[in-house]
C-alpha cells in the first residue's frame, strides 16, 4: 500500500475517532476532545509511518480498549461535577425561598394582627395586649385565619427544600454525618429566620410563632431528606456512603 493511501486512512481514522469521542460526557469532551483528537492524530501518523496498515489496525484495537476502559471514569468525574451544581442550585433555591417567605410572612403577620406593615405603629397607637395574645394563641394551633394557605404552603415548601438540599449535600459529599449536619444547620437557620421577623412585630414573652410553625413542618423535612437519601443510595446513581 502506498504512503499516500496510508495517510488517507490515517486521516479518516482521525475523523472517525473524533466521532467516537461523542461517547464521552459533553463537559469532558469540550475540555479535552480537541487534545485527544490531536494525540490520536499523532499516534495514527506514527503508526502509519512505522508499520503501515498493520500499525493503524493495531492502533484501532488499542483505541477501542482505551475508550471502553476510560469512558466510565470520565462519566464518574462529570457526575460529581454536575452533582456539585445541583447542590449549589438547591442551596440557593432554599435560601431565596426562605428570604421571600420571611419577608412576605412578616408583612402578612403584621396584617393578621391588624397592624399596618412597616408603619411605625408602636409610636402611633397603643398595643391591645389581650387581642394580641388571643391571636397568638390562635396561631400556635396552626390557625392563621385567612393567611392559613400561605402559612401552610410556605412551611411545606421550606421543609421540602430543607430536606432535599441537605440530602443532596450528603450524597455529594458521600457522608451521612455531613448530611445530618447540613440538615441541623439548615433547620437552625430556618427557625431563626422565620422566628425573627414575627418577633419584631409581636414582642410577647413566649415562643415565637415562626418557631412553632416550623416545628410542625419538621416531619415533612425529615421525610424529604430520607426519601432523597434512600433514592441516592439505592437508585440508579448509587452513592456509597461513609458514616463521616
Amino acid at each position, binding site marked *: 500500500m502506498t504512503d499516500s493511501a496510508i495517510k488517507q486512512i490515517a486521516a479518516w481514522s482521525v475523523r472517525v475517532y473524533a466521532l467516537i469521542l461523542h461517547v464521552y460526557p459533553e463537559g469532558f469532551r469540550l475540555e479535552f476532545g480537541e487534545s*485527544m483528537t*490531536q494525540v490520536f492524530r499523532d499516534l495514527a501518523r506514527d503508526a502509519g509511518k512505522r508499520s503501515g496498515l498493520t500499525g493503524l489496525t493495531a492502533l484501532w484495537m488499542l483505541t477501542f480498549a482505551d475508550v471502553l476502559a*476510560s469512558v466510565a471514569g470520565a462519566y464518574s468525574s462529570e457526575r460529581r461535577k454536575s452533582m456539585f451544581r445541583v447542590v449549589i442550585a438547591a442551596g440557593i433555591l432554599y435560601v431565596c425561598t426562605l428570604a421571600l417567605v420571611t419577608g412576605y410572612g412578616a408583612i402578612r403577620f403584621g396584617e393578621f394582627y391588624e397592624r399596618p406593615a412597616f408603619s411605625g405603629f408602636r409610636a402611633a397607637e397603643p398595643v391591645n395586649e389581650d387581642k394580641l395574645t388571643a391571636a397568638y394563641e390562635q396561631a400556635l394551633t396552626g390557625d392563621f385565619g385567612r393567611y392559613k394557605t400561605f402559612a401552610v404552603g410556605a412551611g411545606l415548601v421550606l421543609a421540602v427544600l430543607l430536606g432535599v438540599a441537605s440530602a443532596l449535600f450528603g450524597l455529594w459529599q458521600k457522608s451521612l454525618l455531613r448530611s445530618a449536619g447540613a440538615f441541623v444547620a439548615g433547620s437552625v437557620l430556618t427557625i431563626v429566620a422565620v422566628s425573627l421577623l414575627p418577633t419584631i412585630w409581636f414582642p410577647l414573652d413566649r415562643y415565637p410563632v415562626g418557631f412553632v410553625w416550623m416545628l410542625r413542618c419538621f416531619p415533612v423535612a425529615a421525610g424529604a431528606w430520607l426519601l432523597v437519601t434512600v433514592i441516592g443510595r439505592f437508585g440508579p446513581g448509587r452513592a456509597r456512603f461513609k458514616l463521616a
Partner: protein
Amino acid sequence: MVKRNMRNAQAAPVTPAEFYILLALADEDRHGYAVMQQVASDSAGSVRLGPGTLYTAIKRLLDYGYIREVESRFDPDLDDARRKYYRLTPSGHAAANAEAERLAGLVRLARTRQIINAQPRAQGGRS
C-alpha cells in the same frame, strides 16, 4: 481552592498511571502526546496510555491540583498545531514523593521478607 487541593492531596493516592504521568512532568512541562511517549519510555513499554486513559487521568490530576495547565504552544518536533502543556505543581510533587516513599517501603518490606534479592527458601524442598 488551595485548601481543597491540599485536602484532596491527603485523601487521594494516585494510581500507577497517574504516578507515571507525575513522573513524566517532573523535569519539564509536556503536552499530552509527549507525556504518553515519556510514560512508554519510562516504563520500558509496559505502560501504554491511550488518549482516553491519558486525559481521564490528567483530568483527575488537574482536579486534585497535582498538575496545572500552562500556556499553549507549538512543539517544533511535531506539527504546527498549538498544544496544551501541563506542569507539575508543588502538591503534585508532594503526592509523587508520597507515592514513591510508599513504593520504597513496599520494596524494603519485600527485601525483609526475602521476596526479592534472595534465594527462594523452599527451592528444591518440595517435590
